[in-house]
């Protein structure tokens, strides 16, 4: 076996900042020096592409319905949770005026970190958050407190079923000339009673998530013989 092998595609699970010390953080020990140069010459693919994080920004995310209209001339099939972008003066004013009813989030954190549900705070804490937003409005968005749906969940300590709030993380793939959505996804459960924070990093759990086949996909799977046999092999 050769001691070195050319790599065509890198599915990276490290952030841009650590990818290449020649371009991003110079102190990164996790990345590959020169990989961005190879990428920009078209000699290797990096998945997802560097710089996709601009859409991760929660303030930018709020504009996805506008993107759908702009690029596809379609109406969004699924709405966003209404979002107040604190950088916009009128949104900032609304946020400050109605803060007790809102959930405040930093624009660039994931995993439920930094999410503040305002009606759980004391008056002094609320004032503190307001000051933080005013000092740095670009860094925050606010959303109405959405009541996540509940699902019967086994509570071990009580040996009974109780409603717990859940969400759904879907996984969508986009390749050259095809795309795919994983049927279902990860249903995350906020195990603490009444908690709305489902993230695993905050102690959430998960459920197997089933998507029922309809008659047409059933006919389809008979035709191809594959989906059907796969679902049978689960048993």
């Amino acid at each position: 076996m050769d001691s070195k092998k050319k790599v065509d595609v890198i599915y990276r699970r490290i952030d841009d900042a650590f990818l290449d010390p020649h371009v991003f953080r110079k102190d990164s020990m996790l990345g590959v020096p020169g990989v961005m140069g190879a990428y920009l010459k078209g000699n290797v693919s990096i998945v997802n592409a560097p710089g996709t994080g601009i859409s991760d920004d929660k303030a930018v995310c709020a504009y996805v319905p506008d993107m759908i209209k702009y690029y596809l001339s379609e109406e969004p099939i699924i709405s966003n949770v209404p979002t107040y972008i604190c950088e916009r003066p009128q949104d900032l004013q609304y946020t400050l005026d109605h803060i007790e009813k809102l959930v405040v989030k930093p624009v660039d954190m994931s995993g439920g970190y930094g999410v503040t549900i305002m009606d759980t705070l004391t008056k002094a804490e609320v004032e503190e958050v307001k000051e933080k937003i005013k000092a740095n409005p670009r860094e925050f968005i606010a959303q109405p407190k959405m009541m996540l749906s509940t699902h019967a969940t086994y509570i071990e300590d009580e040996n009974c079923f109780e409603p717990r709030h859940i969400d759904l993380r879907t996984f969508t793939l986009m390749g050259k000339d095809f795309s795919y959505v994983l049927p279902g996804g990860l249903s995350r459960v906020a195990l603490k009673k009444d908690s709305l924070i489902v993230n695993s990093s905050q102690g959430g759990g998960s459920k197997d998530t089933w998507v029922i086949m309809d008659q047409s996909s059933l006919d389809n799977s008979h035709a191809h013989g594959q989906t059907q046999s796969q679902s049978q092999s689960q048993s």
Partner: protein
Amino acid sequence: MESLLSKYKLKPNCYDEVFKEEEQYRSEYFMIDQLLSKMDFKTYKSLNEEAKLSFLNQGITYALYTATESTETIFPFDLFPRVISSSDWEVLEKGMLQRNKALNLFIHDVYNDAKILKDKVIPEALVKTSKHYVKEMEGFSPVGDIYCQICGTDLIRHSDGNFYILEDNLRSPSGVSYVLSNRVTLSRTLPHLFQGKLIHPVSQYPNELLRTLRSVSPQQKLDITCVLLTPGQYNSAYYEHSFLAKQMGIELVEGGDLFVENDFVYMNSIGLKKKGRCYL
């Protein structure tokens, strides 16, 4: 016999996924009802323990970080599955594809012609001040103009019964390994639950992911080499990285296993073999 859910109390002002009202299952849950109505708490509890053991035996643990310490724990799992009706899923699937398409066009536009910014649909400053804006990407087009090959979008169902998008994760969305292992665990623990049930399988995901990776290779050829680059075993999602690499049959590498020569990327196969991370 007292059924498992006879004392279940709905939470006021919330959409309950399972029940329309007290003791009235939604139609997509009829088959779950059939199974659970025959089960007592003792059986359910012991099955739940079995499931937990199955996760432990599969080595599925999660590093939980607090301010002061980190611990490896099992990702809490509950045997009672969530069921999505085919009509709900049809809308969700279309919605996700539409959204991903628009996001991808947006990223390409921002780094090339920036039309959407010039037309002031989205404020330029908002995009350009994002911490994740990468100047080096300006004027560059990746293979197939695809930027977000893998997107994890979080949705919630509000009390009005509709799904809403909470956020998109386009950097390193994690969690898919739990989708696959949850299904394996549930089908091992409650095999008869799946008998004759027409549920969309999830086990093809690693193949679809590999197909996605290969489709964006700079060269289309027979022996495309894909690798999964992980920050290493101290990352909270390391289990998922090794799981996906193994499922796809590709190398799991760390930065030190790769090097660049004349603007091409290579992996040091001998080094990988020594570390026991070489599957080839």
